[in-house]
């Protein structure tokens, strides 16, 4: 090693140069490493910010304030025709009964204004709630029972301390009189903060205290069911054909390019296609899970095809050769050997595709799943909405309580998604064989 380097430096001079530059180079190295760590920290920071923000806003959304009232279930007033059916109860004066017990709890306020303020205390859905209670407990008819009713959303917001007493009466949404009533009920121990049953069992409502995700959840499940029933067989069949049977020709190439292009098309465009084809051209109704599921299936198809192809490709050729060698036909080889071995990978891709479909909003807006629908859909031909669209709709409402409910709904949606993704990761780790 006595050669002189091209620049004419002797090894000694060269090593001196290196020694001179080494501190600045090491500093650069440290800087570079720091940038990398900073980038990861920023990304993780975003994640924490996002989740912390939503958890912080959403956890209170799982709870709401209830007021317990002693209601006298007067059979004559509630069930005038004495049949105990939904129809006969509909003629009953539930609101009146609740009003009476509310006035009683407040020490029978006098005057129309005072009574009106008192009525603003409880949710307007209380009559419905009492009716359900009576239907569930017909034996209590005639006695006096304590029933919990949700408080109105403004009262709820006040009880959470988000509306200050210090604000002048003109500028806040609840009056001094109402605050006095709330204090009176609180002093009697009637007001409690509990897990919101409306959130899980209530349906879409313009009243924040009664709004729930039940309809949207059922809609999501139905839509996803349609989606998986269509996308899974089609995706796997396409993957099998392209990987195992397709000849290498122009047509196969066109199909492959098509699939890659579809994977790149923005999701909202699938919604436009659904609108133009299924709703305008085929005349199918709007807002139904069937159309939503088909649109989402077409959207997730590329995801499923691409991951299924990868899984099928990962099955070593020796398996196929062995099966063919002992006399299995091509189809038998695929059905009996290749597909079962590729199944974990295929399922992983399918779950990821379904998670994508579950969180998708834009295409469903296009086909009208954004309509305000109170009833829980009972089938794939019933108008409904889905969880992400429900979140989108709630996000538009200005009431403070809706923000909390929206965040709570987001937490539920994220729980589903993270469970699905975790299941996919688990499948990939545990079941996938390395050849």
């Amino acid at each position, binding site marked *: 090693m006595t050669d002189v380097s091209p620049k004419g430096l002797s090894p000694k001079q060269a090593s001196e140069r290196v020694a001179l530059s080494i501190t600045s*180079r090491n500093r*650069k*190295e440290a*800087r*570079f*490493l720091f940038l*990398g*760590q900073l*980038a*990861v920290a*920023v*990304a993780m920071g*975003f*994640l924490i910010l*996002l989740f912390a923000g*939503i958890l912080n806003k959403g956890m209170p959304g799982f709870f709401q304030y209830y007021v317990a009232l002693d209601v006298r279930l007067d059979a004559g007033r509630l069930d005038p025709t004495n049949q105990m059916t939904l129809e006969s109860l509909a003629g009953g004066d539930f609101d009146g009964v609740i009003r009476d017990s509310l006035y009683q709890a407040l020490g029978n306020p006098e005057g129309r204004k005072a009574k009106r303020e008192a009525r603003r205390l409880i949710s307007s859905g209380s009559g419905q709630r009492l009716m359900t209670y009576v239907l569930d407990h017909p034996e209590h008819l005639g006695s006096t029972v304590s029933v919990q009713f949700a408080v109105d959303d403004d009262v709820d917001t006040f009880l959470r301390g988000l509306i200050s007493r210090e604000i002048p009466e003109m500028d806040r949404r609840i009056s001094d009189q109402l605050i006095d009533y709330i204090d009176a009920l609180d002093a009697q121990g009637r007001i409690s903060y509990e897990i919101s049953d409306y959130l899980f069992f209530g349906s879409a409502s313009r009243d924040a205290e009664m709004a729930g995700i039940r309809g949207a959840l059922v809609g999501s499940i139905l839509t996803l069911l349609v989606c998986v029933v269509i996308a899974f067989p*089609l995706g796997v*069949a*396409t993957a*099998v*054909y*392209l990987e195992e*049977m397709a000849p290498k020709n122009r047509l196969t190439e*066109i*199909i492959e390019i*098509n*699939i890659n*292009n*579809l994977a*790149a*098309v*923005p999701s*909202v*465009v699938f919604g*436009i*296609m659904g609108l*133009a*084809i299924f709703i305008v*051209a085929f005349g199918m109704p709007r807002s139904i899970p069937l159309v939503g599921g088909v649109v989402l299936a077409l959207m997730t*198809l590329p995801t499923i095809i691409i991951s299924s192809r990868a899984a099928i490709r990962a099955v070593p050729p020796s398996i196929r050769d062995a099966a063919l060698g002992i006399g299995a*036909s*091509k189809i038998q080889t695929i059905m009996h050997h290749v597909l079962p071995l590729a199944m974990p990978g295929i399922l992983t891709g399918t779950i990821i595709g379904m*998670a994508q479909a*579950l*969180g*998708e*909003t*834009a295409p469903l*807006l*296009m086909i009208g799943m954004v309509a305000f629908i109170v009833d829980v859909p009972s089938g794939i031909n019933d108008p409904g909405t889905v969880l992400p669209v429900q979140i*989108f709709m709630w*996000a538009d409402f200005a009431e403070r309580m809706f*923000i909390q409910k*929206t*965040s709570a709904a*987001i937490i539920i949606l994220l729980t589903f*998604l*993270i469970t699905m*993704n975790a299941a996919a*990761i688990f499948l990939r780790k545990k079941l996938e064989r390395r050849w």
Partner: protein
Amino acid sequence: MSLTNLMLTVLMIAALFFIAGQRLALALRSSSADRLHSLPHYHGMWVAITSALPALFVLLLIVIGKDLLFQFWARDYFPQDVLDGDAVARAIALAKISNIIDGIDFGEIEPWVQAAGNAWIRWEANATVTANFLVLMVSIAGGLLGYRRIHTSFRSRNNVERVLTWILIGSSFVAILTTIGIVLSVLFESIRFFNLIPPQDFLFGLEWNPQFEGAERAGSGGGTATYGMIPMFVGTFLISAIALIVAVPVGLFSAIYLAEYATPRIRGVVKPLLEILAGVPTVVYGFFAALTVAPFVKSLGESMGLEVASESALAAGLVMGMMIIPLISSLSDDVINAVPQSLRDAAYGLGSTRSEAVRLIVLPAALPGIVAAVILAVSRAVGETMIVVMAAGLAANLSFNPLDAVTTVTSQIVTILVGDQEFESAKTLSAFALALMLIVTTLALNYFALQIVKRYREQYD
């Protein structure tokens, strides 16, 4: 029988034929001296296929064909003025009839509508009976024909496999059909739009005011509707640019750190977390942007004495950048990992530090892949809908200021198409023209990315 019940019945008949076919084959095997060509269950499947497939095909034909036929017949009831009228008049007439059929009452019913409605209901009932009879007949007849062909030497397996192969081929055509569906649905309406609005006004127009359309038609002089797409594309690219300014450095440096520096344990924690970030639905990002980031940006800007719109492009862009980070980092991670270790070893052997190896050797080698990842990220940002619908404004300002409210292509599409539409109005049709531009843009970007990878990729192995 309803459609579902009829289909279930057909499948039940097929199942029965499967059992019968399989039994016949088993009986043949034990009674006959010849060996069966195919396994018994293939014979069963063959009979089931001959029973179900033609029947389902007939059912499909009836379902698709009957409405067309009825619409044709219904013309006999149309009065002369509807027959002489244009397509819209006929569509209205058909809608009136379908209201009768659905039992929706809109008061005054013209006698001919009532007559056509009654006739339609009659036809519908007849069609149901005919469909039931025909489908069941075909399924039984097909099954019997298939059953009679079963013989020891009958090549059931080959036949079943041929049908299966055709089903597989048919499935792979769904992708092509979807593409055709997308292109046609967007193209037809776009052409109608361009018949109303000259393409050059749309492509190069600097003003977007479709909401004046109603006023213009009513002649109230509220303003002129204009359909220039430039403000929306400027808005889209402004927000995308902000997103990239956030996402490219963070995503790229994360990828470098994870691929070159991180221990397997850190990788094992950070990568799934990034995947979670990628799996968060866009509506959640939109909510976050509208509720947390936008007010924060506004108050921050105002504390510095700047005028910030409450739905600023900056807020939407920042959150979109968050959304895109995992895309860039995972794609870049893949290409960085694909650079062979020998290149790094060679660099270390020459005395370079780790960062020098990365900057001077690995990154140049991975550059085409990274550029492609960034282009894919742009295409994703351009097509992203929910964040901009929820966090960006609707005012079509032609502005490059990130603190202004801008609107984007996707948010305009959603705004126009959500709710009821009139397919005759230029406003509704403009959404389809915008969608066409959106598709062209994203596909061009993806094609571009693919070409870069193809042309500049280094093959090391």
